[in-house]
């Protein structure tokens, strides 16, 4: 289980996240929803050590150790937002890079085949430059690269960003399959409806604070939207 205690983080003198206490249950999909600028991506960047933080991040009760690049070795893997792929490298090179941590290098071809079973289209595109892919395919490469690291905990940042609705559904089908296989997933998402459809737990972040934490089953979408858009007066 991944857990934050009084986590605060920001950029330079500006604090974006304030005393965030979250629990990400093992084997569950936890969705972090919230409007633009709420601090969702900042949360992921703090979790992965890309920006400094105060407070604690615990993995199975012990503080998460090391720098950003040490986390992948411990199974905490991030799929960055904006379909960040290495454009001048082939699809397969992008994917192989995901298996960079020492423990993933064993059977590279078996690892690739397992990943291709999730993304058959990437197999067709394996020797193509990643920069020439469509948005949906690039998102799949970013996720496939994450899978290659054989994550225990997969942090996915805004997978629906800028994708056509059909493609979004395709991406979320894959997220469902990953979840069914037992991967712990932390999903950052603005699209509350689709996030709710896959999530076990939902946390709403607004202006750097957690304003709602509930099991997805008990979340009422209207009430969530009232909180999301800060329409407290009119809610319920």
């Amino acid at each position, binding site marked *: 289980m991944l857990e934050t205690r009084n986590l605060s983080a920001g950029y330079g003198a500006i604090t974006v996240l304030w005393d965030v206490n979250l629990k990400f249950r093992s084997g569950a999909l936890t969705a972090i929803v919230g409007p633009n600028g709420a601090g969702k991506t900042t949360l992921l960047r703090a979790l992965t050590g890309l920006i400094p933080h105060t407070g604690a991040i615990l993995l199975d009760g012990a503080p998460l150790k090391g720098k950003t690049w040490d986390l992948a070795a411990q199974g905490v893997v991030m799929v960055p937002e904006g379909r960040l792929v290495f454009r001048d490298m082939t699809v397969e*090179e992008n994917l192989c890079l995901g298996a960079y941590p020492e423990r993933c290098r064993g059977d590279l071809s078996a690892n690739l085949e397992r990943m291709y079973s999730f993304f058959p289209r990437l197999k067709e595109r394996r020797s193509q430059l990643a920069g020439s892919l469509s948005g949906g395919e690039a998102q799949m490469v970013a996720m496939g690269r994450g899978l290659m690291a054989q994550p225990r905990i997969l942090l996915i940042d805004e997978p629906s960003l800028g994708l056509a609705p059909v493609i979004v559904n395709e991406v979320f089908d894959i997220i469902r399959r990953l979840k069914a296989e037992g991967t712990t997933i932390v999903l950052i998402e603005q699209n509350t409806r689709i996030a709710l459809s896959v999530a076990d737990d939902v946390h709403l972040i607004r202006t750097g604070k957690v304003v709602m934490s509930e099991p997805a089953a008990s979340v009422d979408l209207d009430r969530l939207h009232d909180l999301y858009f800060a329409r407290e007066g009119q809610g319920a």
Partner: protein
Amino acid sequence: MSDTASSRLLSGRSLAMAGGLVVVGLLPLAAGASPYMLGLLISSLILAGLGLSWALLGNLGGMVSFGHAAFFGVGSYASALLAAKLGVPVLLAIPLAGGVATLSSLAMLPALRLSGPYFALAILAYAQIFRILATEASWLTGGAAGLQRFPGLPTVFGFNFAERHGSYVLVLGMVVLCALIYVVIRRSYVGIALRAIAESEDATRVVGVNSTLLKTWMLMLSAFIAGMFGALNAHIIGFLEPDYAFSGIWSVMPIIGAVFGGYRSVIGPVFGAVVIYMFDQVIAKSLIPVGHQILLGIVLAGMVLLAPNGLAGLVGRIFSRTGGKHHARA
């Protein structure tokens, strides 16, 4: 490229490349080139090796260096002094000098925090430190008067490396060896990671790459290779002075050669350095005895305009046009 998945680091292709380099490299010997011509070719191969070390840092490490003269000069002085003052055998002193150049590169580690033009400027300034050191520490280096009495290349098993043909073969072998090392690194996990760092350092860190460490290794390896070629050159020339060993030429020529030949390929910097140097010495010098470098500038500008990927890119383009290489979907 899809065979990066296999762990075979030395593919048939790269060995064929190495074999081709050796064959092409030995042609001048077979053709009975004059000692004067061989001398020029040796110098061009020294620049080719230096160009490889520059391209290794520039292409794989994503760091543009204007200061390879520092590593080259440190290597040449280190080898000459080790051989002259401590009596180290020359063929051992050369790799040791590479080690000393590597140590000198550690002083540059703070500059790794910089990127792009800031790194280039920092390393430009850094190169001057060693020229000044070599001038001022005259008790060790002979100062501005230079260093003359140090051993040349030895004779091993009846093969005289000090003689032109021998030196040529030795330098050629070193260039091929360094090219192979470059290929092995580029095809490894480290190589893929380094290319990724050049695109997005954050995204590379997230997948578990210690980018700072990898860049440090590349800087050290690049310095090692540059230092060894500096050492080779010192023992072949037999004379050192600070203004020569740390001359800006050693920073600029490998860049010109690599850009001309195609700095993104392994073979580009090698052929680029040889072609550019021979052009400069044989053709440009006979046309304009003083200021012949101006022709280099014109040729380089033309190359950048017509073939931004250099000779290697040009050759590749011709081959893909005739070979009908299949194109990826846009």
